[in-house]
């Protein structure tokens, strides 16, 4: 298991390099020159060249990449062109907010989703199943920004339970977490339900019944354990979804975070900030898939055997 | 034996697996140095348990998979070196019937589509009345032509599979466990059908099976395989086996006759992993007659040319 964990972690290195190249390149396709923002109207070409040199924009692309990569690996994410501050500071300010939001939303989707999925599967084709699956369908079809605004309208404006926006205190997290979490919950509920139902039809479950074990014990100790394997896989693979949800929801609720940072930087063509926020999001996705694979291996001896 | 229609010489196939990132590849010989000949009009049975390589052999003979080494001669032509066009032409002369009657027919094809596919593939016009004729030959009503496979029973589907194999009037058929997924009652129907077709059309069969009783009933000669290699070739269905494995295989099948009840002495152990073949005889660790030589040295397939056996201590 340890050997596998090490090997699996090493596999992130080429993936990281590939992602970094893509992120680096994408940014060079974005039209709009940030330098224009820095120059006063009518500045001389020399002033322009000076600024280009300061940000290393005059060198060939591969060299720019290597310099950038080297800096990134040593923790230097560059200086924000518009904000004129080290990018690492901006990221450092944004990251805790996004992590709190993403982590809570992930926890919410997993706990609520698995619970609802189990209840739905145990009551297959009866009213609790239909009610849950109906609710899940409705929940997953609303655009998250709209859902966020509507909840804001209902709970903050009309009922006054939570602050409308901002990031002060725990209560400001409730609506954003709910908004992101509902989409994730829908996904987790669906997968949990389908996979519980599928596993329950397997031969070994029949044999567990034949051993005289109680149905509830079979469902919770055996069937659920198997059903969670695909749930973990999907959750890990789609950790990005949750972060993606965070991007829009942060903007809607005017919360500081990677999403707000990214959207603002995109609008301002602030390369270093965009690069750094994308890199952070990409790393979160990679760590998510790594954790998912490791969890899966921990849960299933067959996976470990196939990888040994 | 009459002039061989099919001659297989030193056929081997290795499969490599694994070999990913920081991971050691493993390889196994699914078929090891198999030579055999099927005479014109003969039914040659190949029998063995799972992992013995009989299905791989069937596919190698029809070149559905490429051999690692060795040759397959159809009427003197080496199939293993033919180019795409020549191979397609050669495929008119040989065909295969598959084990699984469910997955061997495309669910979106009607029965008529299935049995005319050989013509489409070979870019030949479908002769008028051919569909009804083919269906009749395998005992299906002409009205079945418009139906889809899912509307048919397992036995009927297998008949459609046989009709497809016969469409271009091949001389040689590879039958890969054609009855293993069917009930015994249906198995007997299919065997009767195949038997009748062979008599009527003068076909040559390579019949793959795990059921020694069935092979002894249906085939002229029997090749016994164990872990990729031929261990014995029985010249007819009555000759007593000389290889201990063949004997064990015979003793493991139950006679449907309470009068012949006997105390079973089943073979101990199970088939070893093909990834870790022993140096000597592959059967040695399960064999009651094995000695030190069997463990160290691989016995060649020799002895009586009509009844070769790969054993140092034949019965």
């Amino acid at each position: 298991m340890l050997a596998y964990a090490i090997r699996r972690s090493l596999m992130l290195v080429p993936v990281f390099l590939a992602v970094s190249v893509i992120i680096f390149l994408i940014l060079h396709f974005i039209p709009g020159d940030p330098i224009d923002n820095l120059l006063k109207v009518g500045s001389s070409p020399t002033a322009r060249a000076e600024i280009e040199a300061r940000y290393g924009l005059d060198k060939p692309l591969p060299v720019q990449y290597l310099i950038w990569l080297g800096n990134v690996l040593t923790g230097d994410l560059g200086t924000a062109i518009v904000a004129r501050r080290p990018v690492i500071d901006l990221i450092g300010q944004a990251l805790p907010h996004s992590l709190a939001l993403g982590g809570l939303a992930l926890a919410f989707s997993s706990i609520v989703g698995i619970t609802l999925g189990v209840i739905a599967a145990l009551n297959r084709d009866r009213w609790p199943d239909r009610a849950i699956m109906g609710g899940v369908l409705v929940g997953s079809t609303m655009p998250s920004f709209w859902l966020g605004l509507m909840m804001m309208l209902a709970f903050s404006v009309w009922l006054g339970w939570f602050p409308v926006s901002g990031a002060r205190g725990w209560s400001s997290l409730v609506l954003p977490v709910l908004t992101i979490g509902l989409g994730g919950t829908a996904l987790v509920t669906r997968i949990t339900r389908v996979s519980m139902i599928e596993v329950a039809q397997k031969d070994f479950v029949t044999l567990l019944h034949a051993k005289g074990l109680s149905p509830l014990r079979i469902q919770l100790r055996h069937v659920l354990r198997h059903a969670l394997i695909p749930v973990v896989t999907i959750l890990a693979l789609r950790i990005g979804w949750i972060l993606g949800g965070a991007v829009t929801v942060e903007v809607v609720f005017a919360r500081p975070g990677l999403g707000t940072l990214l959207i603002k930087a995109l609008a301002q063509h602030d390369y270093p900030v965009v690069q750094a926020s994308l890199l952070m999001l990409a790393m979160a996705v990679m760590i998510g898939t790594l954790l998912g694979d490791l969890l899966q291996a921990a849960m299933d001896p067959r996976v470990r055997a196939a990888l040994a | 034996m009459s002039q061989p229609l099919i001659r297989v010489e030193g056929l081997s196939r290795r499969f490599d697996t694994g070999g990913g990132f920081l991971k050691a590849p493993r390889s196994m010989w699914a078929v090891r140095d198999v030579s055999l000949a099927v005479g014109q009009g003969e039914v040659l049975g190949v029998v063995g348990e799972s992992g013995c390589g009989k299905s791989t052999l069937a596919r190698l003979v029809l070149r559905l998979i490429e051999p690692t080494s060795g040759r397959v001669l159809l009427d003197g032509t080496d199939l293993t070196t033919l180019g795409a066009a020549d191979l397609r032409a050669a495929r008119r002369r040989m065909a295969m019937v598959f084990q699984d009657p469910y997955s061997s027919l495309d669910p979106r094809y009607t029965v008529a589509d299935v049995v005319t596919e050989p013509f489409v593939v070979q870019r030949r016009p479908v002769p008028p009345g051919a569909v009804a004729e083919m269906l009749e030959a395998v005992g299906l009503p002409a009205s079945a032509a418009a139906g889809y496979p899912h509307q048919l029973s397992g036995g009927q589907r297998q008949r459609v599979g046989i009709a497809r194999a016969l469409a271009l009037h091949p001389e040689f058929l590879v039958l890969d466990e054609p009855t293993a997924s069917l009930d015994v009652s249906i198995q007997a129907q299919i065997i009767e059908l195949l038997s009748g077709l062979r008599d009527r059309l003068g076909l040559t069969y390579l019949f793959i099976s795990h059921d020694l009783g069935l092979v002894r009933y249906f085939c002229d000669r029997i090749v016994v395989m164990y872990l990729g290699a031929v261990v014995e070739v029985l010249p007819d269905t009555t000759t007593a086996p000389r290889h201990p494995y063949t004997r064990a295989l015979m003793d493991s099948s139950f006679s449907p006759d309470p009068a012949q009840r006997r105390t079973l002495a089943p073979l101990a152990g199970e088939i070893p992993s093909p990834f870790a073949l022993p140096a000597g005889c592959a059967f040695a660790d399960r064999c009651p007659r094995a000695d030190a030589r069997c463990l160290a040295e691989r016995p060649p397939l020799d002895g009586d040319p009509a009844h070769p056996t790969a054993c140092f201590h034949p019965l």
Partner: protein
Amino acid sequence: MSPLLELQGVSVAIAHAQLLDGISLRLDRGQILGLVGESGSGKSLTAMAAMGLLPLIGGRVTTGAIRFDGQDMVQMTEAQRRALRGRRIGFITQNPMTALDPVQRIGAQIDVVSRLHLGLSSAAARARTLELMTQLRIPEAGAVAEAWPHQLSGGMKQRIVIAMALAGEPDLIIADEPTTALDVTVQAQIIQILAALVRDRGLALLLITHDMGVVAQVCDRVAVLYAGRLAEERPVDPIFAAPAHPYTRALTLCIPRDDTARGALHGIPGAVPTALNYPSGCRFHPRCPKAVSACSATQPALVAYGEDGRVACHLPGPGAP
């Protein structure tokens, strides 16, 4: 002495389809009853009914009684049935490859039975597990108990399933095609183990199989099912020597024996009907060589036949058609 297991006129339905119709069987201690028939005849359903596991597949007993040791399982509460399962009735499924929980170690899967039903401590349960495994000639039982299912071969897994079935010290074992998924040489090993259990421990075995060879070699009695009904039920020797039902006779003629001449193998024409299109009268009549007009008109009753046997046929008895 009352039989250990007795099915009396058991009918089973799933949704609206009546899949078993008036099945009656008897099994005494120390006996092996073979249950044969083509796929779709209702063999596995009978096993599920006798295990009280029909709800798992959405089925229910509509009429009849299933008496285990004199008590009707149909009338029991689910808790009472559950107390029997694993404790007094052991179950062996067809495919050992899928019968074990792939994410639980072998030993634990056997231990749970004796802990649950015999109230053993974990240590005592493990000791019993190892003892059972050794009796079933599983080499290095200690190591195998710590292994995962995917690390074992098919034959070894089937022995584990047998150990699981034995762990509650049952009186009856129901084995549903226990060898179908195994290699020929391993099939013989498993059948030998099962036969020895009955001989040595005085268990009763309900052996469901499509292999008439296995039936001939190890069973005491044979029940032949066709399309959800019992065709014939008799001791093994006479049923092979002189089958009373044409279906039984047809089944024995399907399998080549050492002395079967070329061309003497006879299939049964047609296929087993599904519950949606059961024929009238005797359900076998469209495929029966002896059928007369009465066969399509009225359902033959199950009547006593020969020594300790019963048959449901208008024209029972030997004789070629």
